């Protein structure tokens, strides 16, 4: 089991999640972050710090979001570990407002 980064991270990528993750399980590309399910210890610390509510535990994902489990696994294997917070993507704050967060 693991936590999963989903849609809301795209176009925002605030990366607050890395500040709380104890096991460096966040990976990153130019669009968003991904959780390595092999390293995630299910502590859930990243959930409340994400400004756009993008992170959920895999066992509670809605059916139409389940595909993110595979996306996180695959992309975490292909992308580098994110060691420290990055500046949010341009337009992140506008998107955050759009998401009603």
């Amino acid at each position, binding site marked *: *089991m693991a936590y999963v980064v989903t849609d809301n991270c795209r176009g925002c990528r605030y990366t607050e999640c890395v500040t*709380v993750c*104890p096991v460096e399980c966040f990976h990153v590309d130019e669009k968003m972050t991904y959780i390595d399910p092999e390293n995630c*210890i*299910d*502590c*859930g610390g990243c959930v409340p*710090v994400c400004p756009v509510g993008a992170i959920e*535990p895999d*066992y509670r994902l809605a059916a139409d979001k389940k595909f993110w489990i595979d996306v996180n696994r695959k992309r975490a294997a292909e992308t580098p570990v994110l060691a420290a917070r990055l500046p949010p993507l341009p337009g992140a704050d506008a998107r955050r407002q759009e998401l009603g967060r």
Partner: protein
Amino acid sequence: MARTTVVGACPHDCPDTCSILTTVEDGKAIAVRGNPDHPFTRGRLCVKVNNYEERVYSDKRVLHPLKRVGPKGSKQFQRISWDEAIETIATRWKSIIATDGAQAILPYSYLGTQGIINGLNVGDPLFNKLGATVSERTFCDSGSCTAYMMTIGPTPGVDPESFVHSKYILLWACNTLGTNSHHWPFIEQAKKAGAKLVVIDPVRTRTARLADWHIPIRPGTDAALALAMMHVIIKENLVDRDYIDKHTVGYDELAERVSTYTPEFAAQETGIPVEDIVKLAREYATTPPAVVRIGVAVERHAGGGQTVRAIACLPGLIGAWKHVGGGLLQLPIWAFPVKWEVLMRPDLQPEKMRVLNSWRLGSALTGELGFDPPIKALFVYNANPMAMVTEQAKLEQGLEREDLFTVVSEHFLTDTARYADIVLPATTQLEQKDIMFSWGHLYLSYNNPAIEPLGEAVSNTELFRRLAKAMGIEDLSFYRTDDEIIEASLDWTNPVLQGITLEDVKAKGYARLTMPSADDWAPHREGNFPTPTGKCEFKSTITGGGNFVVPLFRQGYNGDQDGTPVDALPHYIPPNENPQTTPALAKRYPLSLITPKSHAFLNSNYGNLPAQTAQAGEEQSVFLHPDDAERRGIVAGAPIRVFNDRGAFEAFASISPDVMPGVVMAPSGYWHRSNRKGATVHALTPPAYADLGRAPTFSDVLVQVGKL
């Protein structure tokens, strides 16, 4: 909507004692999260506690007193009033006391909640006053504590936060990421600064996977490794002679003792290659600051006590204590100035009491122990023995006794509560007030109640006030309010509480004990061990009375101790059950079973709740090495039976090279209902005590596994 945030503390029997922020909306708790300001919690809870509000509002909660209306164990109950429940209990107890004597009453509890006022000792004054049978609770670290006392005394040891300064970290029988995860960031920081992380564990755990070196070890053989490390350190003159001369006793005898524990001997016992044992000893002795963190599992076999004796000698031998971030971490609980006597009230005890150890509940209830008077009344709180205790078949038989009057105070109808005559509704941590020690860091915590109690649930403190009143106890100390007990439970004049007021802790939720900073504190740089000699005792000076259980674990009673003679020097006691020591038994039962904590349960807590079972796995699984599985024709996911002469349980096979060949791992904490055969892993574990402190021998058990 009125939304507030209430600061509290996690109630569980875990070293991390997290600071919890509960969001409350119109009197209802809607979310919990880790306190981002707390230096150890750092904004995270864990897989067990993240959904705590779901535990609180679970539709399975027991919210009113119940009385049994069907056969024992049938789960047929009827709601009654608190008055009727208390009246029934008091009437029955008084009648038992009149006919059989108070010893026929047995309390049974542990750390289902570990707050200072609602936890370990909350019922002790009442049962001490009644003169009931003493419950000797050696569930966790009791053997380790006896051994620790015998070696370096009740010292907090290395500050867990000082690990950031360590250069060699040895996690011994400790899956930090699974059961102590808030310690991990300190270890990781050390790693980033160049520390080497070594994990000694029969299983390649999550923690072992992130280590620089994982050393798999046969269960129950750890003392052989520690003794052989000392052999190498002494033989190769890697000792700190100056530290030994100034701050230890018994070095010459220790040197002579370990001369026979060669790496070759240890290799044979542990399954670790000779060259790895030598390398480990050399690296440990020559990479200061070196620190050892022992987990609770290290004691759970025949020689568990002497294992901790041997490990506790290591830092003294190399002078590791001289450095910040060097030494040993066992339980920093010893730093907290708790007035245990005030909580336990041993002064109320009759001179002579009868003692029953936690692992003998089954044979006590069946009458096999020959108790006279027999146990006629059982009072269970903060515990679920049917799921977590040895002698499961006997226990079930005992709990079915028609003449046994069983009361269980609980959140849920657990495997134990279903056998009760009376079930009482207990509050969860969000509904009660408490002050908390920690056995994994140096912060005192305060748990403010976040919500009103649900239904008619009451805290343990209130439960025992009601019982005391019904039993006609006049002593006013039994009727103190929670605030009064909190105030009285700590020695506020102790230097570690200097500058800390109750009001501050209450408002902020926590306070670091007033101790030197983790960045420049080496607690035993100048010796000052809290032992009779003030030194690290390689040769213990307190073995004269033989084996004992620390009175804290036995209601403060120090009579009728085990007393088995104890060798004052550390030594190797082979497992009771393993292929080397019991080859005949191993022919029938060739696999060593270990039963670590499940990923998402805290002992049997959460074994019934959807969020945690979803994350732990809905049903009991058993992990086998691919070679062991193949030999038995077992494929992944297959239903299997695990058995020995004591019992059997059923499970699903998980096949993984992460467990050593010859070892099977069955995570504990599942309830009977999640097992196909209606038994838990403890149907197979032995009632035998470890050598010291009557610790359990859960990791010292041979089994066979077969396809179903």
